[in-house]
């Protein structure tokens, strides 16, 4: 009888602790759901609003109906977008500019990071510190001096023949080259390469590899997460860039997506079309993130670096 009682008590105890764990888990999920909703609502609002005519959209903003696709739902706003701006051209421009900046940046910055973390030379630490120090300067602070520099740079233009001209304004490369070398990327690469055991370099040196071969054949294959992180971190600011293109690009056919937003505020403002345009230009970013998501999260979780 006694034994049965104590067995019963033990079972109850186990059940209670199970309940506690379940409660804890539930509250954790609840918290995460709230956070997820917090970040998702603006996107839902954007997508839903892009499907509504302007008068309904403005009426709904004061209530939760703003997040519900109902009433006069259509893709008319998307048609309107293409009437108002050359959206396809802008998106293609932005894809070209961002991917070239990211691609070149991955090559240049990973090489710099590799040299700064793996190859021994005098002044290595000072150089890395100087590079990191440049992180405190925002683009806004250097935009005007940078503009003055690029207006003076020589360029080769293809007209009737090859011609050397002055100034980079109104080109694709003025939107790309100033952002290829990136202090944050160099720092992230240097950190990541620094965590690869030094013996691998030594083994490769003895195996007959040059430093470039060590970079190519040993460091790069081991650094997928670092490349994914840097790709996302450099893609976003270029895609979202507004100030710099505004300063250097007047010609319409080479404008990036963000300059397109301004078109909707000229003459009569069409909110539905703005939302449709924003939805369209968000899709490539989401696709980019989905592509690199796993490696990115792995890397951010392990390095403590925030995007």
């Amino acid at each position, binding site marked *: 009888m006694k034994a049965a009682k104590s067995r019963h008590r033990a079972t109850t105890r186990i059940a209670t602790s199970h309940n506690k764990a379940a409660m804890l888990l539930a509250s954790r999920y609840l918290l995460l759901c709230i956070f997820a909703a917090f970040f998702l609502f603006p996107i839902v609002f954007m997508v839903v609003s892009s499907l509504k005519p302007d008068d309904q959209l403005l009426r709904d903003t004061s209530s939760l109906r703003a997040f519900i696709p109902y009433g006069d739902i259509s893709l008319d706003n998307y048609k309107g977008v293409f009437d108002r701006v050359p959206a396809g051209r802008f998106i293609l421009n932005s894809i070209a500019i961002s991917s070239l900046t990211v691609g070149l940046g991955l090559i240049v910055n990973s090489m710099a990071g590799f040299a700064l973390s793996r190859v021994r030379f005098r002044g290595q630490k000072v150089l890395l510190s100087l590079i990191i120090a440049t992180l405190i300067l925002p683009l806004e602070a250097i935009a005007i001096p940078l503009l003055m520099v690029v207006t003076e740079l020589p360029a080769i233009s293809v007209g009737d023949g090859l011609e050397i001209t002055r100034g980079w304004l109104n080109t694709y490369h003025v939107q790309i080259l100033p952002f290829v070398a990136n202090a944050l990327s160099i720092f992230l690469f240097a950190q990541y390469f620094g965590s690869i*055991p030094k013996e691998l370099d030594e*083994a*490769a*040196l*003895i195996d007959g590899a040059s430093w470039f071969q060590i970079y190519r054949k040993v460091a790069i294959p081991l650094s997928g997460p670092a490349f994914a992180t840097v790709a996302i971190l450099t893609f976003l600011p270029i895609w979202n860039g507004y100030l710099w293109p505004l300063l250097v690009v007047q010609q319409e056919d080479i404008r990036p997506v963000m300059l397109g937003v301004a078109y909707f505020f000229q003459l009569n403002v069409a909110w539905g079309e703005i939302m449709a345009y924003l939805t369209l230009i968000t899709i490539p970013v989401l696709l980019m993130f989905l592509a690199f998501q796993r490696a990115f999260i792995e890397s951010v979780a392990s390095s403590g670096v925030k995007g």
Partner: protein
Amino acid sequence: MAEISFEEINKVYPNGFQAIHNLSLDIADKEFLVLVGPSGCGKSTALRMIAGLEEITSGKLRIGDRVVNDVEPKQRDIAMVFQNYALYPHMTVEQNIGFSLRLSKVPKAEIKDRVAEAARILELTEQLDKRPNQLSGGQRQRVAMGRAIVREPSAFLMDEPLSNLDAKLRVQMRAEIARLQHDLEVTTVYVTHDQVEAMTMGDRVAVLKDGYLQQVDTPQNLYDRPENVFVAAFIGSPSMNLFEGRIDGSAVWIGDHQIGLPHVVFDRRPGLQDYDGLSVIVGVRPEDLEDAALVPDAEATVSSTVNLVEALGSEIIVHFNLSAAPVDAGDPDAVEEISADANAVGRFDPRSRAAVDQPIDIAVEVASLHFFDMETRLSIWD
């Protein structure tokens, strides 16, 4: 194939620390030389200098007949096995072994053949498509060996290659490496802190301490004729017992114990006669002590009380305390082999009835005693 020679080599790090002092050492072609010593003795630094991974501050390093001080690692024609193997994690076993051949643009078909041959020798044929993280410690070790042998280098350098393996595997790999070196006849420099590895594998063993070469000789000579107190204590397990003593005519006093020294001792060590009346360091190996009850015609005995008995089956290790001042050999890594209250260890026959806290008479094999100068700590011979 190549000889390797150190000529008065020094290594001083930028922070002023001198890792190697005036090292001169010749390693013969096809020789298996072991560099052994406690941590921080400079053995790995010396090896890395041969590899070209450490700069040489002064002196000349030759491989074959060329001075290689300023030669890039890849041009030295050496292969190295690292302590943690340094296998490329993203490559398969086949790619790891063939990496150096691919870099030197060896034709693909030849790479395949040579990798397959290395894999066959090392019994890795089944593992060629696996990645290092799918292998056991012993297999990884073999891949590291494969990477070295596939290049057919003029010398192998091995930096504590067995220290990450468990005891059983270590014994097995020890024999395999020794056999491989014997078959391939490649000059090999092997670094270890384990004196058992050093003694069992090396044709010769170089003992280093604090960046100074202490002695280089065959394992047996190191054991029989150590040049100084450090080598005497470092080689052999358990370590040699070392006490302060005093020569008194044809006897030596170790604390309160007087041991008569027969002529044979003075014949072997004529220099000992100059120490009459002087203090010396007396060394006696644990295997030169025995339970006096088992040695009816013992030349000399000392009395003590047993402190600890460790029965190993084939022998028993008996710890006891001699009323004499022990001498520190200066090995920073020396494990406390001796129990807290004891200052001497003997390896006795298992028939010994030695029991804890019981008095015991211990027979000393007098002819095998070692004597060292108190000041220089060098062995007293001539």
